[in-house]
């Protein structure tokens, strides 16, 4: 039971890291390698507002979300849209966007170092134990998990029950045919990219409560997010959540029962076996 809850909490953290990338990669077809940097920026905002003005990270995220949305929207319009226009095929767009966002991640790291410095930022917020079924858990991890659940729920409802959400899913399935039925593909692709960035930045704000970040750590989160998105299936928010929770529970199980040194090995074993058995990911559609 203890393993299950600890694992779920860790899975919540992973979901926060990966949901934004799924929106960006699944819906607007941009494999955003600067995703982790956006997460660190969100984390830094939470750190800065907490240490300078004692603003709770839970308030900060409401500020971070619109700012990150606009920022990502601009990034998409200015930098990525020309690539989308130019790309003849999906493969070409992927290669171009990987190269561009890879470069963008260096720019983001450079800007962060120039503005905030390279120091670690770590603060203590809600680092209190809560007792669930007789075991101690960190309150900040629990609240981040609840945050992840709320974001995931909202995204799921929006994508499945609202008109723009359905349109975005249509783009994910087939960008060319969705134009035929009157969907404004360029606009909605920009929106889903921006939304993905906002979700990532909010996730960064939440996980900065218990993880120590610095300007250069973004790439670690990008990698983790990539693995989770691919495991879950590109373009399906349910897949990302399930993959994140699965990974969290597996890592905690291995760390507790076998050895903490083997968590990475176990994570990659899971990754490889999912790729072998279901190359399209847990919830992904097989390309027909």
């Amino acid at each position: 039971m203890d393993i299950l809850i600890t694992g779920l909490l860790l899975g919540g953290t992973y979901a926060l890291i990966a949901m934004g990338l799924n929106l960006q990669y699944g819906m607007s077809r941009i494999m955003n390698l600067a995703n982790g940097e956006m997460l660190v920026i969100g984390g830094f905002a939470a750190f800065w507002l907490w240490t300078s003005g004692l603003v709770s990270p839970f308030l900060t995220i409401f500020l971070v979300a619109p700012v990150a949305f606009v920022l990502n929207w601009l990034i998409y319009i200015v930098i990525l849209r020309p690539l989308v226009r130019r790309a003849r095929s999906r493969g070409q767009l992927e290669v171009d966007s990987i190269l561009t966002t890879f470069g963008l991640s260096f720019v983001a790291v450079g800007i962060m170092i120039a503005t905030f410095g390279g120091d670690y930022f770590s603060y203590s917020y809600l680092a209190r134990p809560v007792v669930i079924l007789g075991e101690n858990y960190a309150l900040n991890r629990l609240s981040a998990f609840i945050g992840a659940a709320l974001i995931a729920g909202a995204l799921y409802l929006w994508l499945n029950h609202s008109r723009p959400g359905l349109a975005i899913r249509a783009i994910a399935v087939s960008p060319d045919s969705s134009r035929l039925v009157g969907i404004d593909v360029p606009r909605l692709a920009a929106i889903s990219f921006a939304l993905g960035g906002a979700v990532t930045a909010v996730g960064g704000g939440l996980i900065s409560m218990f993880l120590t970040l610095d300007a250069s750590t973004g790439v670690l989160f990008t990698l983790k997010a990539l693995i989770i998105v691919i495991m879950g299936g590109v373009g399906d928010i349910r897949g990302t959540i399930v993959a994140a929770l699965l990974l969290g529970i597996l890592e905690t199980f291995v760390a507790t029962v076998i050895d903490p040194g083997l968590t990475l090995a176990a994570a990659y074993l899971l990754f490889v076996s999912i790729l072998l058995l279901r190359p399209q990911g847990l919830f992904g559609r097989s390309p027909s």
Partner: protein
Amino acid sequence: MNRRWMLKLATGTVAAVTISLGAAQAQETLKFGAVAPKTGPLAGGSAVTFWPNVALWAHDVNGRGGLDVGGKKYMVEIIEYDDQTNPGETIKAVQRLATQDNADFIFAPYGTGLNIASAPIFAKYGYPMVTHTAISDQIKELSEKFPNMYFTLGGATGLAGGVVDVLNGLRERGEIGNRVAMVNVADAFGIELAEVARPQLQEAGYEIIYDTSYPLGTQDLSPVIKGAKAANPDAFVAWSYPPDTFGLTAQAKIEGLNVKAFYTAVATAFPAYLGANGAAAEGVLGAGGVYADGAAFQEYAKRHEEVTGAKPDYWASGMVYASFQILEQAIEATDSIDRAVVADYIKNNSFETVMGTISWDENNNNAAYWTVGQWQGGVFKGVASTGREGAVPVNAKTGWE
């Protein structure tokens, strides 16, 4: 009239600027190269420990009119390179400083691995290499190979030995028993320290009841702390790196791992550690330490904060500055910028620095170094060393509140 006056003013200004430029050009400078991570895994550490000291040292030296070499004053100019925490880049940057920038001296890089990687290049071009953040048990072999390499921060055996000494002290006072939980990050530093510490602890009669490693970058350390707690230890020792030092501490607080001796390694001495943990940091043991009550360190810490806007850490920060002071004093004492002469002087003399006296044994090693410090009243004070003065008695940790 007005226009003519303006013209006069303009000509005057131009003339003044030209004159002052001329004066500045006549003032000769010495070039110092600085290579360390600004990005990559070690960037967080070097942003605290290394780079502010480079700025502070240049500020201090230029503030008093430059380095005095044979009666002539030289301002110092710093050439900075980011090595991206990549040994290949460190080597390239040092090479570039030596051959393209014609740097007069080069500061040792940051971190054990990057120092060892670039030592052959320093040796090839004859630059004295006063290391400040290199911890190694291979000092004898290294100094035989690279006679211009000097060590100040100590070795793994000494660091681990310091922890055993501190535990012994607590055990003698009856604060702790023999049960030690030891964990390490699965990285060069953590693995080496754990391997060195294991026999030392066993020899001293401790029972290692929980012994495990975790991968670098582990995002949830609660299984590690839960496992340690379940073993019911008297002391907890973690050979950890910065992010996990913070993570382990936060988790220990949440799980209520109430050991009387709680030790985390790198970054425990960082000001950010106190910032993140506040009063809970009280009594935490960590790698390093300084003579925190000594006038030399306090004066240095004050200037560090005034000039760079950040507090120094309580371990390697002072040693970084001290290594620059060693170069500075050697240059001024020999009245020479001949690198061989300066290196020879360093080898045969001891130096008064912000960390106290630094002197060398036969392996160019500063044999007296700090090993363990403890947060006491918001200051990280040295509690164990291999022969430095100023150690304070160690306290048992009393909970996390």
